[in-house]
C-alpha cells in the first residue's frame, strides 16, 4: 500500500466536503493510504500572494515542514488552488537564499524534499487506471461529460509540471476507463473567475456562463472538475446566472472523485453528491447510477 500525506485544505472541510469524502473513499478502495497532514494550516490561496510574497511562500511552506516531520516523501493535494501554492513553494525552496528566508519566517528550517502532487495526478497513473478498470462495479454508461481542469492544475507549466497545459488529458483518460463519453470542447483550462465570486460576482457569473454554454454546446450532460473553486463557481451560481441572463443550464458539476466513487460502487448518498446546489442526482438516477 502506498502512503501519501494528504492536504485537504480549507474548502474540503467546508463547501467542498463531498470532494473530501469521495477522495478518501476512492483512495482507500484503490489501496492508497492517506495520512492527513497533522495540524495543517491554510495555504493562503488565493489571497496571500495578493499582498505579500513572503506570506504567500511561508504559509504553504509550513505544511511542507509538517510533512517532513511526519517522515513522508509525497503529499497529494485535491484542491487545485492549494496545489498551485504548495507546488510553487516546493520549486522556490530549491533556491538556498529563498529557503533560508522562509526558514526565518517559519522559525525553523524546511528542506523542500517533499514531492507535491495533485490528487488528480495521483489517481490517473497507468497503474491506478489499470487497477480501477478491474474494479468497476457500475460503468458510467456513456454519460457525456466535459472535463474541466481550470487554471491552476497545469499552469504555469514550469511550476505545475502536470499534464499538457492547453489540452490536458488525465481526467479524460480516467473517465473513459470508467465508461464515460468525454466530449471535445475548448474551455478545458479557461478560468471560471477563481476567487472573485464574492467581491465581483458579476465577473464570475459572466465567465461561468461562458463555460456552461460551451459545455452544453459540446453536448455534455455534466462537467467534471478537480478544483473546489471551479466546482463552487459552476455549481452554486447557476441560479444567479438564470436570474441575470435567463439561461437555465441545470448542468450537474461533479468532482472527478465522485464519478470514480460511483463507478467503484459507492452509493451517491455516501459520496455526498446530494450536497451540490445544482441537482446532480436526477441525471444519475436516470442512468441507474444513483
Amino acid at each position: 500500500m502506498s502512503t501519501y500525506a494528504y492536504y485537504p485544505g480549507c474548502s474540503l472541510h467546508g463547501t467542498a466536503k463531498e470532494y473530501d469524502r469521495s477522495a478518501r473513499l476512492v483512495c482507500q478502495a484503490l489501496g492508497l493510504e492517506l495520512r492527513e497532514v497533522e495540524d495543517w494550516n491554510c495555504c493562503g490561496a488565493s489571497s496571500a500572494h495578493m499582498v505579500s510574497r513572503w506570506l504567500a511562500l511561508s504559509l504553504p511552506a509550513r505544511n511542507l515542514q509538517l510533512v517532513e516531520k511526519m517522515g513522508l516523501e509525497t503529499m497529494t493535494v485535491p484542491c487545485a488552488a492549494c496545489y498551485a501554492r504548495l507546488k510553487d513553494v516546493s520549486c522556490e525552496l530549491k533556491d538556498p537564499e529563498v529557503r533560508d528566508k522562509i526558514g526565518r519566517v517559519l522559525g525553523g528550517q524546511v528542506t523542500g524534499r517533499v514531492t507535491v502532487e495533485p490528487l488528480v495526478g495521483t489517481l490517473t497513473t497507468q497503474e491506478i487506471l489499470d487497477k480501477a478498470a478491474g474494479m468497476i462495479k457500475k460503468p458510467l454508461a456513456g454519460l457525456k461529460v466535459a472535463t474541466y481542469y481550470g487554471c491552476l492544475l497545469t499552469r504555469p507549466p514550469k511550476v505545475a509540471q502536470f499534464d499538457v497545459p492547453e489540452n490536458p488529458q488525465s481526467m479524460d483518460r480516467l473517465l473513459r476507463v470508467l465508461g464515460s463519453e468525454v466530449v471535445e470542447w475548448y474551455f478545458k483550462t479557461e478560468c471560471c473567475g477563481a476567487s472573485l465570486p464574492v467581491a465581483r460576482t458579476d465577473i464570475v457569473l459572466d465567465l461561468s456562463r461562458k463555460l456552461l454554454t460551451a459545455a452544453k454546446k459540446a453536448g455534455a450532460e455534466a462537467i467534471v472538475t478537480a478544483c473546489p473553486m471551479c466546482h463552487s463557481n459552476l455549481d452554486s451560481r447557476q441560479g444567479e446566472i438564470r436570474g441575470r441572463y435567463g439561461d437555465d443550464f441545470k448542468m450537474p458539476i461533479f468532482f472527478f472523485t465522485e464519478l470514480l466513487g460511483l463507478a467503484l460502487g459507492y452509493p451517491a448518498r455516501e459520496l455526498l453528491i446530494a450536497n451540490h446546489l445544482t441537482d446532480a442526482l436526477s441525471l444519475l438516477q436516470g442512468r441507474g447510477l444513483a
Partner: protein
Amino acid sequence: MSVLKFASTDQPGRNGLLALVKAKTGQDVLACYQCGKCSAGCPLSSAMDLAPHQVLRAVQLGQRDLVFQSSAIWLCVTCQTCYTRCPQEVDLPRVMDALRSQALQEKIRPAERTVKVFHDVFLGLVERFGRLYEVGLIGGYNLLARQPLASADLGLPMLTRGKLELIPRRVKDQEQIKAIFKRAAELELEEITGQSVAAAPPASVPS
C-alpha cells in the same frame, strides 16, 4: 481603455518603476515587445481598465500612477494563462503581485475596493484561526464591503446541504501562525528599506 503616453517618464536607475519591478520579481519587463498574447488570453482583460500588455507598457514607460491606480492589478486572478503563453516568458502574474504590493505600501487607494476588502478579511481569518473560516469570510466581507446581502441567497441552501461549518476550525499551533504573519511583514519591509527590522529568530524547529 486609457490612452498611454509614448514618452517614458520612468526615473533612471534604482528609483525607476522598471528597476523596482526587476528588484521585486527578477523580471525584465523590457523583454516584452507588446505582442498582446497575454491580453488576448486573459479572462479578465475585458473587465480591466488597462489590459495586461498595457500594464507592462506602462511599466516600461514608468507611468506609476496609471499602473498603481489601475483596476487591472486588482482584477488579475493569477490564472497564469499569460505567463504560459508569453513568447518572452515574462512572469506577468508575478509582476502584478509586485505592483499590487507596492501600491499597498504606497497607500494608494485600490481601484477595486471590494477585492481588497475580500483579501483583507480572508487573511485576517487565516491569521486568527490558521485556517479559512468560510462563514466568517462572507460575514466579514458583507460587513466591511457594506453589502449586507451579498451571497445571502446561497447561505440557506449551503447550510441545509452541510456545506457551511458554523464553528471555525483552528490550527493548534496558533503562536507559529501569528509569528509567520509578523515575520513575513517584517521581511517585506526589510526588502523595501534594505534594512533588517528584526533580528532573525533562532532556527530551531518548533515542536
